[in-house]
């Protein structure tokens, strides 16, 4: 005794057609993901095919060389490491403090709006422009040494700080107001509330954003072209002011070598860099999952 209006052949056909459209649409979505990830897989497979055979201890521990069989990535990796140290030492505290100020304390004035617009915009400014800035400010004006992890790190810090501020603000925003209310209601001051409760609770989120920002900085090449890191450096840098290369720059330099044996080196270096990045991303995801709090 079911409803005849929905049992007519026309109605049934219509429903069948709509359900088919539904399935098609769903497949389309799945296809889009498959295609995107397929591309990623292709990239990884090709790099692995070209580069895996070149990954050995002497490659991992050596530095740049004109002989492809002698060349290694340690020098560049150490340069990357030092550069990242500078970047994080500057971008992290500044980013976190700025995020705290903007989210918790800033009065809603025109001025602060400008700060916000600048930060959001800086996060999207092409990286090469930070290279121009680094060249003008750190090298030409401040006279810091060219090609050094110090200048590279400072330049990348300017680029990374906005990313940290933005993710930091989101993490701070995600701390429920009820926690702030709770602290204020027992007589904590605003500053105490923020530093005792909000910041610790937002920290996992901030860290996640920081790791992602750092990963981006680690893979960055273009701004470093501008500040003299496109160089042949055959000894790993001993300190922050020694000239050095970085991993992505090493890849770029090797990709331009005449000797075709460098193709293997380039791919192997890419594998090393990608492993670093995936490890960082993995850590970020782990942190996010571990500390993600549902309020």
């Amino acid at each position, binding site marked *: 005794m079911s409803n005849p209006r929905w049992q007519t052949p026309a109605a049934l056909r219509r429903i069948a057609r709509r359900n088919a459209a539904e399935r098609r649409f769903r497949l389309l979505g799945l296809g889009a993901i498959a295609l995107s990830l397929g591309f990623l897989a292709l990239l990884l497979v090709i790099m692995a095919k070209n580069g895996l055979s070149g990954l050995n201890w002497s490659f991992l521990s050596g530095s740049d060389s004109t002989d492809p069989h002698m060349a290694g990535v340690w020098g560049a990796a150490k340069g990357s490491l030092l550069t990242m140290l500078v970047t994080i030492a500057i971008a992290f505290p500044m980013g976190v403090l700025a995020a705290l100020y903007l989210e918790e304390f800033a009065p809603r004035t025109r001025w602060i709006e400008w700060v916000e617009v600048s930060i959001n915009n800086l996060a999207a400014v092409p990286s090469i422009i930070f290279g121009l800035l680094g060249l003008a400010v750190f090298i030409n004006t401040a*006279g810091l040494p060219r090609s050094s992890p110090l200048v590279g790190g400072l330049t990348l810090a300017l680029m990374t700080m906005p990313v940290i501020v933005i993710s930091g603000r989101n993490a701070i925003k995600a701390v429920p107001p009820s926690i702030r209310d709770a602290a204020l209601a027992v007589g904590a001051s605003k500053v105490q509330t923020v530093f005792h409760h909000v910041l610790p609770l937002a920290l996992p989120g901030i860290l996640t954003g920081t790791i992602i920002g750092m990963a981006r900085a680690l893979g960055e090449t273009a701004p470093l072209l501008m500040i003299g890191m496109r160089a042949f*450096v055959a000894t790993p840098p001993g300190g922050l002011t020694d000239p050095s290369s970085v991993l992505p720059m090493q890849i770029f330099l090797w990709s331009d070598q*005449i000797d075709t044996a460098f193709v293997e080196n380039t791919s192997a270096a890419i594998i090393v860099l990608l492993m670093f990045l995936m490890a960082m991303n993995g850590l970020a995801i782990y942190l996010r999952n571990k500390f993600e709090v549902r309020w």
Partner: protein
Amino acid sequence: ACGGSGGSSGGARDYIHAVGSSTVYPFATAVAEAYAKAGGGKSPVIESTGTGAGMKLFCGGVGASFPDVENASRRIKKSEFEDCQKNGVKEIVEVQVGIDGIAFAEAKTGPGFKLTPVDIYKALAANPFGKPNTAKTWADVNPSLPAEPILVYGPPSTSGTRDALKELILEAGCKTDPAMEALKKSDEDKYKATCQDIREDGPYVDAGENDNLIVQKISQNPKAIGVFGYSFLESNPDSLIGIPLNNVVPTYASISDFSYPGARPLYIYVKKQHLGPIKGLQDYVNEWAKAWGPTGYLKAKGMVIAPADVQAKSAEIVKSMTALDPSTLK
């Protein structure tokens, strides 16, 4: 870097710093490596900035924050030398380290071009002899050439190789017309535009800084011609052959004796004032002298060695470190 506030890094530097040409870069890195291996000290840092940008850094001043050596794929210009002087870089030692040929090449399967500078000038100039370039095929330029479309992959406007192409080939082709010589006297700018400007309507393709890619393109495209440093031709003997200019095939020999028109000298410039303070700078320059000979390893890297008399003269300069005489510059 203006020396004014450069004080913070005015202290010591215990490695050699060279900047400049991307053409010289592979040779400079090889020398640097040999120098370091010979126990000369910390490995020198070689930056590939391009000749001009390198000159700017090199001439920035004297002191640890300025490079010691400039690699150049052309001679220093008078204006650059003056800038050096102004910034206190008084004595510069010029050493010719070898030769680079700009090679014209086609794929092994190509039609077998034989060209002259005039052909190339007519095919590639923006305004050959003052008239807009309408040539579409090589036959338009010279009826004896195949009627294939003109397609030349060459270096971009920012490269020293491109300058060499303009000065060594195009201008040579251009100067075959006496009217041009006259023009040079009357209107230098116009002369330059007529003899050196490269057409931009398609037949000449800017292929980017990456000479590797030009090589690949040519080997895939039999009807195209590529222009790049000789070393690239030498390291791809399976896929490429050189195109004779004036019936001279670009070979090692023809470039080193300058019988091939596309040969140009490569230089390094050394800051004499740095010889004392920078440990090992003299050794590094000596290492160049060891390497550029007929049995040296630079040859294996694809550099064309200079003729014996040039080598001797350069060796003499290295030994005595005689400064460059500015009156020979233009």
